[in-house]
Structures are given as structure tokens and as C-alpha cells.
């Protein structure tokens, strides 16, 4: 009988022992299940587990950014939270207002951890900090860049190696690039800037290039009605209505990449997140450049950050910190950037031999990094959903010719003032 009880004990120990020592690290990750990136993330999780016995990582793939936020917050309300989540960088104020996240500074207390917090591009930290504390660690981040079709440039008699550097040049070059058939119908447009899905994001680039940011750094005021902002929207609208180099009405975000790779537009503004896909499908040589300047260059950043939830045990926080630090190590940031086209989030990632070699063969990959110098944080305020939609509607109303840019933006500013007054 003795051997039996010993056997039972050992089985029990084997079953219970590791489970007790193991910390479960569940995190929500905004991507549809089965997408190509789930494999990359799964691979990282397994590798991390091997290097850190005692921590078990469970990524939950939760759809797009909106879905991921809804699922994470719903789980939180139901009392079963994931300690960690990658969510939209601009959800910051919403998450603070709901009082569900903690600052990374409260967890990263060692000197080494504090240095880590300072290792990222400052441009990427602007959407993650509030009142001097860091709430979001940049992970899958992007900016807007200009893609141009070198073959079309050659055909139109332009230098294929020289993209437009400013607004005037872009309009002029674009009008040379427009191609019409015998009946006068356009078969190739000069430039397309998408205006569905994320119109505010594209517009931030125009506004920044004209010297204006659209919101205050505390997230409690917007700057929609400044004359230079109105002029920026006027320029965007003129590309379609006056210069006739872009289709009138809105340009669909989801199909723009195909329009470019099919040669239906010679230039497009799009996220760097599309870089790898364009490279794989374009049958012509293409270039990637910084967006053109008006008073200055400019582009907003975008994408997802790591957030740490408040309802967590000290062990979970420690495990989360270890995991996020591991995920943002220079070598991994470089690897992630090459796999996706997202920017590597820290300067030393670009110094790794692998990424250096990759950039030497594919210089388009580092344009986004060079543009960080002119970057502005993505539009994010308190009441961010409503405040953002006011701007989206104003942009679309103006591009479709229903309202003038001045009327549309002034009305949006008046509404946003009403919404944000309680936060000042």
C-alpha cells in the first residue's frame, strides 16, 4: 500500500506543482484569428515561455481594434480580466476615464526598467503618456507615407526617382500623371488619399503639414477651426474638385491598395502597415517617400500599444512587465518590423545587423522611421469616439461637396467644445 500512496502523491504533485508556480498571462491582441500575424505572435509566445519557465502566455485574438477593446472591457466588467492587452493607442483617455489601467512607471521601478521606458522613439510615446506617466508601450505602430509608381512617373515624363516634396509639386505632378482614354474618362488618377475608415488620420497629416495640431496634449480641446486647418481641408478637397487629380467624393480605404497596385492611381497616401503587401503584389517598381510638406513635413503616428490593467496580482504584473520588455527587445522589434511593415519602435532596433541588411536591400522600409522627426500623435481626446466622428463627418461632408471646409470644420469645433468642456 505504501507504494500506492507514494505513487498517488507523486502524480498529484506532478499535476498540482507546476500549476501553482505558473503565472497565466492572458492578453488580448487585435487581429482576426487565422491572419498571417497570429503565427508570428504565437511563435513569440512559445519562445518566451521556453526562456521564462513559470509563465504561460495565452494570446486571445480579438478582431479589429474596436472589437478588441470591447472584448477586453467586457471581460473586465464580468470580473475575469486579462492582465495585459494590445489596444489602440488612442484609447488611452477612454481607459483612464474608465479607471481600468495602471501606469507602467508604477511597475517598472528598477533602474534597468526605467531605462527601458526611455528606449522608444519619443514620437511613439506621445499617445501613451498622460500627465507625465507612461500608460502605453508602443508595439505595432505605423505612420502615413507616400507610395509612388515609378513606371507611371517615367511615362508622364517625370523623374521616377523624385517624389513630390511639397503640396504645389504634388498637385502639379499629379495633373501630369492623370491619364484619360479617347472618350475623356480617367483611366489613371494622379493621387489618392483615402477618406473612409480613418479620414481624421489622413487629415491630421494635412493639418500638421500646414503647421497645426488638431488637439491639445491633455486631450481636452480640439483645434478644428483654425484658418490653417481649414486651408488644409481646402487643399485636400481641391485635389478632387479643382485640380481634378483625385476622384471626387470619398476614396475607399479598403480597396485603395489594389487601385495602386493595378496602376489606377500613380500615387497614394497609405499606412506603412501596407508596405509588405504592396511589395508582394505590385508588378512595377515603386517608391516610398515622406509625405509632402506645406509649411513643414508631417504625419500622425498610429497603431497599438501594450496596456497593463489595474485588476492584476503582483505576480501578473511582474510577468506582464517581463513579457512586454521581451517583446520590445531590439532584435524582436526588428524582426516584427520586417515581418509586418510596422515601424520598429526603438532606435537601437535599426542598428541590429538583420534590420540593417534588410533596409540596405529594401530602403523603403526605413522611410517611416525617418519621418518620425515630423510626427504628431494620433487624434485622441476624452470622449474620443464622438470627437473623432465629428471630424470624420466634417471631412467627408466637405470632400463630397455638401459643405464648405470652413462651415464643416467650424460646426465640428463648436460641437467638440460642448463635449470637452467638462474636462477642462
Amino acid at each position, binding site marked *: 500500500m505504501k507504494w500506492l500512496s507514494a505513487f498517488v502523491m507523486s502524480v498529484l504533485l506532478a499535476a498540482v506543482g507546476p500549476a501553482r508556480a505558473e503565472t497565466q498571462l492572458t492578453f488580448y491582441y487585435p487581429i482576426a484569428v487565422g491572419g498571417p500575424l497570429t503565427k508570428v505572435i504565437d511563435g513569440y509566445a512559445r519562445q518566451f515561455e521556453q526562456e521564462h519557465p513559470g509563465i504561460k502566455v495565452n494570446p486571445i485574438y480579438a478582431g479589429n481594434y474596436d472589437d478588441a477593446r470591447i472584448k477586453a472591457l467586457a471581460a473586465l466588467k464580468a470580473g475575469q480580466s486579462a492582465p495585459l492587452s494590445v489596444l489602440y493607442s488612442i484609447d488611452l483617455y477612454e481607459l483612464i476615464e474608465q*479607471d481600468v489601467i495602471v501606469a507602467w512607471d508604477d511597475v517598472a521601478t528598477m533602474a534597468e526598467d526605467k531605462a527601458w521606458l526611455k528606449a522608444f522613439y519619443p514620437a511613439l510615446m506621445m499617445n501613451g503618456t498622460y500627465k507625465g506617466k507612461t500608460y502605453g508601450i508602443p508595439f505595432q505602430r505605423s505612420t502615413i507615407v507616400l507610395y509612388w509608381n515609378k513606371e507611371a512617373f517615367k511615362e508622364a515624363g517625370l523623374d521616377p526617382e523624385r517624389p513630390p516634396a511639397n503640396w504645389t509639386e504634388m498637385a502639379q505632378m499629379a495633373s501630369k500623371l492623370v491619364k484619360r482614354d479617347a472618350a475623356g*474618362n480617367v483611366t489613371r488618377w494622379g493621387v489618392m488619399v483615402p477618406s473612409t475608415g480613418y479620414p481624421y488620420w489622413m487629415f491630421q497629416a494635412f493639418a500638421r503639414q500646414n503647421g497645426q495640431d488638431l488637439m491639445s496634449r491633455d486631450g481636452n480641446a480640439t483645434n478644428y477651426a483654425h484658418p490653417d486647418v481649414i486651408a488644409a481641408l481646402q487643399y485636400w478637397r481641391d485635389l478632387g474638385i479643382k485640380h481634378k487629380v483625385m476622384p471626387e467624393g470619398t476614396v475607399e480605404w479598403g*480597396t485603395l491598395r*489594389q487601385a495602386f497596385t493595378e496602376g489606377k492611381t500613380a500615387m497614394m497616401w497609405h499606412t506603412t502597415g501596407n508596405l509588405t503587401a504592396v511589395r508582394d503584389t505590385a508588378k512595377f517598381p515603386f517608391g516610398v517617400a515622406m509625405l509632402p510638406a506645406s509649411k513643414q513635413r508631417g504625419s500622425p503616428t498610429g497603431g497599438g500599444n501594450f496596456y497593463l490593467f489595474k485588476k492584476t496580482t503582483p505576480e501578473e504584473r511582474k510577468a506582464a512587465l517581463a513579457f512586454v520588455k521581451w517583446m520590445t527587445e531590439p532584435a524582436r522589434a526588428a524582426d516584427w518590423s520586417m515581418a509586418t511593415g510596422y515601424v520598429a519602435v526603438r532606435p537601437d532596433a535599426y542598428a541590429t545587423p538583420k534590420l540593417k541588411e534588410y533596409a540596405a536591400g529594401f530602403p523603403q522600409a526605413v522611410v517611416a522611421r525617418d519621418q518620425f522627426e515630423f510626427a504628431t500623435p494620433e487624434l485622441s481626446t476624452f470622449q474620443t469616439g464622438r470627437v473623432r466622428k465629428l471630424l470624420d463627418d466634417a471631412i467627408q*461632408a466637405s470632400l463630397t461637396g455638401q459643405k464648405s471646409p470652413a462651415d464643416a470644420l467650424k460646426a465640428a469645433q463648436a460641437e467638440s467644445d460642448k463635449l470637452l468642456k467638462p474636462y477642462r
Partner: protein
Amino acid sequence: MKHVYGWLLLTPAAILLIGFTHYPAVATLIDSFFSTGTAVRPSRFVGVENYAALVDDPIFWQVLGNNVWFALGTIPTAIAIAMVMALWVDEKLPARALVRMAYFTPTVLPMIAVANLWLFFYTPQIGLFDRVGALVGSPSHNWLGDPGLVLPATMVMVVWKEAGFFMIFYLAALQSLPPELKEAARIEGASRWYFFRRVTFPLLMPTTLFVLVNATINSFKLVDHLFILTKGGPDNASSLLLYYIYQVAFSFFDTAYAATLTVVLLALLALLAVLQFLLIEKRVHYR
């Protein structure tokens, strides 16, 4: 004892109905009288304030108007096409099963998949419609980017998707019609159109009522395509009531206002259903 037995039999269904239909409806109604709570400012009773905000909300009136146009545009068309298709595949055709299946295929596809397909159909220049248009020399249209075209464009897609589903009901009804009627009509020398107008169509009325109720409800609850096609844009030109509720609840996090909008939607649907059954029921059966 008999009562207990009856209630026991009802219990599973009752639990599901109460838990997932009646309780949420009542809770929504109650929520619509409270403000949206945050960690800093807890929810409090505000009376009809949310309803006052709704009356002042221009987007609410716009999406409601869109929804009415959407219903008027899709329901009669889908029903007419469904009826024609059913009459057609009820005849003796070569490869009848294949034709029936072809008409029914759009129904079995998920709406999200359909919308992803149609997104490319509608893409200016490279899309199916513009390519076909180009063959006859028509200029390119920005189908989804023009506020005047976007709502009709989504309607065409929904009719395409729905008509096959309604066809099935008509087909079933047609097959239950006694064949003697047709024979008698033929002997009497009635034309096909006369026979349809005076016999088939009236006999299909109960089915038409059923389809009408379903189509009306669908026109208010079917918004999946907006997530893919337009996100309600440009400038809310294609947004529908339920999609607006989604935006208010999950993008603006204004749960109280979303509850208010939901109450309006529920009331509207209840009213429509009651009207349809009370008014049309009286004249629907063939006498």
C-alpha cells in the same frame, strides 16, 4: 397537477425568452432614463433627458430617414423579384434544381463575405460595375464615395442577397397550390397573366404577409454590410439606425443614449408588426 406539468414543459423556453429577450428589453428601457456612468461620475436618474437629446440629434433623424428609404427601396423590390423567381423555377425547366440553387446561393453566404465581394464590385475603375460600364462607354462612378449613390448601392446588394431567401417561401407556397385550379383555368381559357392576377397572387397573400413582416424587420436589423462597405459614410449618408446604435454604444461608450435609441428602434418595430398584422390580416385571405 396538470398545471404544474404544463409549466414545467414551458420552463426551458420561458427561461431563454425571459433571459435573452424580455429582461434585456426591460433593462434597456430602464437604462434609457439614466445617464451613462463613468468611474468618476456614477450613473444617475435623468428622466427624459436622453429622449430630449435624441430629438435634438440631427444624425438620429438622418439615419432614421435613411432607414425609411432603405426599407422602401429594398422590401417591394426584393418581394417582387422573389415572386418572379419562384414562378420561374416552379415551371418545368431543364436543370431546375441548378437554377433554384443558383438563386438561393446569395442567401447562404454570410453578409460579411458578401459585403467584401461587393466592396470590390463597387470599386471605381477596377470594380465589376465600372468595368462593365466601360464596355458601353459609361464613365467611372464613385459608387460608395458619393452621398447620392451610396444608399441605393447598398440597397441593390441587399436585394440581391435577400430575394433568394424569400423565393424559397414563395416556392413552397406555389407547390402547395392545388393543380386543379390551373387545369380549370386552362379549360376556361384564362390567360396566364389573368390566372396569376386572379388566382395565384391572391392565394400567395398569406406568404406575402409573412415575407413582408420578415423583410421589414430585416431592413432594420441588417447592418453587417455597413461595417465593411462604408462605415456609415460618407458623412452618415449610408448609416442605418442599428449601425448608429452600435457606434454610440461601442465607439462613443454612451450606453445610456444607445439604450434610448434601442427603445426607439424596438417601439418602431413593434408598431410596424402590429400594424401589419392588424391591417393586412383582415384582407389577406382569399375568399
